[in-house]
């Protein structure tokens, strides 16, 4: 089915089932947050897991997606799908420029440049008038979908978010299993060899980078409409840290890992909130545990135990 392995197809059906049943059991707003972050984590995983590129600056594309969607929805009265799409295109445009600057470097230098550029975006956001500085853009209305379908109720919004997430998830799956994806995997496995076969590897990495930034922007834009707010937190590097943690806890380079990671970390944040700063401490411990003992992450370890590709 759709190029999934049998185990992945079962996993996918299970995931869709959870998405459909979920709001009957848990708060829709919580689930929407999970789905936005899951898409963001999947976009990040596309780079690290399938191209071997470690970006430190994905908060910039996510955050700018938030701002642009929020601003256009509030001030231009764009319909929901257009506002979100513009958020994604903003991420892609920014990614196209930043990627072009960063991709020539590899390893830690690539990571540092993406971080430096993202910090620049953060400082621009503090100063620029359109972001609302410390206050952010608040009270963003949820514009109707296609200008017709109201998204005022959380359930209506939930189905939109679920749809966006599933489309993004399937797009990533297609990218990974396309002729383009084959070349990406070759680059991840052995870049000089891919070059020696005549592939301009920088161009492939750049396209993958832009695609990842596009999806990050989409995730950011969707989140802005869910909560009706876009703030500096969304562009801050700690946002990037969270998404790295999600991908890592779930399992880098696995299809479902980032989704599981998003669920686990957002769940902790939500349901352990009463314990205050202990959440951060627990997250730190989990991070260390993952790096030291469970490198493959929850889904990665599960897949290894079951000898499956998940």
């Amino acid at each position, binding site marked *: 089915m759709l190029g999934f392995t049998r185990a992945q197809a079962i996993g996918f059906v299970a995931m869709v089932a959870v998405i459909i049943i979920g709001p009957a059991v848990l708060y829709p707003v919580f689930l929407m947050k999970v789905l936005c972050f899951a898409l963001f984590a999947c976009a990040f995983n596309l780079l690290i897991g399938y191209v071997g590129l470690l970006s430190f600056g994905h908060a910039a594309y996510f955050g700018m997606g938030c701002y642009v969607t929020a601003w256009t929805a509030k001030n231009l009265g764009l319909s929901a799908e257009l506002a979100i799409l513009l958020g994604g295109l903003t991420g892609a445009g920014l990614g196209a420029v930043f990627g072009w600057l960063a991709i020539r470097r590899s390893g830690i230098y690539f990571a540092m440049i993406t971080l430096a550029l993202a910090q620049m975006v953060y400082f621009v956001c503090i100063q620029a008038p359109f972001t609302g500085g410390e206050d952010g853009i608040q009270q963003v209305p949820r514009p109707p979908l296609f200008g017709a379908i109201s998204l005022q109720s959380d359930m209506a919004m939930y189905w939109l978010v679920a749809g966006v997430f599933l489309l993004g998830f399937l797009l990533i799956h297609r990218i990974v299993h396309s002729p383009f994806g084959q070349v990406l995997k070759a680059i991840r*496995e052995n870049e000089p060899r891919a070059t*020696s076969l005549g592939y301009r590897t920088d161009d492939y990495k750049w*396209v993958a980078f832009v695609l990842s930034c596009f999806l990050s922007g989409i995730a950011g834009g969707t989140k802005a409409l869910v909560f009706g707010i876009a703030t500096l937190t969304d562009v801050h590097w700690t946002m990037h840290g969270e998404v790295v943690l999600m991908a890592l806890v779930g399992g880098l380079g696995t299809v479902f890992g980032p989704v599981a990671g998003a669920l686990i970390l957002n769940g902790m944040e939500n349901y352990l909130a009463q314990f205050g700063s202990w959440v951060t401490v627990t997250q730190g411990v989990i991070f260390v545990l993952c790096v030291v003992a469970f490198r493959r992450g929850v889904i990665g370890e599960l897949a290894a135990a079951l000898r499956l590709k998940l």
Partner: protein
Amino acid sequence: MLETVGLTKEFRGFAAVTDVDLRVRAGTIHALIGPNGAGKTTCFNLLTKFLQPTRGRIRFKGRDITGCNPAEVARLGLVRSFQISAVFANLSALENVRLALQRARGGSFDFWRSEDVLHVYDGQARALLEDVGLGGFADTPAVNLSYGRKRALEIATTLALDPQMMLLDEPTAGMTHEDVDRVVALIRRVRQGRTILMVEHNLSVVEGLCDTITVLTRGRVLAEGDYATVSANPEVVAAYLGRADA
């Protein structure tokens, strides 16, 4: 076919390759030999533009390629293998070869299309794997192949590009006797219509296979000619003995 003039590469003042004038005639197998650290791999890196020469020019098929990038050089039909076996470890043998065949589509930037379109190359890929004795390993991940088979896979991948000229860096290094024989037989079979430049430490392989030999020591050409001429050269003997002592 391939010609260099005054090719020189310095790493921070250390000259790894100095003033090398190399002429590889079309249709021949040309060996580049020399003690460890002589600059053979560096030469390959220069020829395929993985390194930028400090000085000198490189011409391939009469065309100056000194300013090209590595991917362009490969597209012109000058394809290299690597000293450390270079396969795509977590991809299957079939996928490895197919990645080279896939080059025939031009760029592969179509991320919206299913990889099923690549199945048109499966037959060709299987035939190539058969050719190098890997017929039964099409679906094996490259990482699980033995060392000799990895090298064979690398050659199959290189051949898949149907290059006019191949640069092979120590294709038989670290192989068992049978594997060496298999690779030598393979090179003999595929030399038809191709030019090959190879680095090789195994002198019996060189003797049996190569038309011309260039001996490199400390980055300079020490001698050139056929096997008999070169092996009779006292300087070459000294260089090799020197290496044995070291």
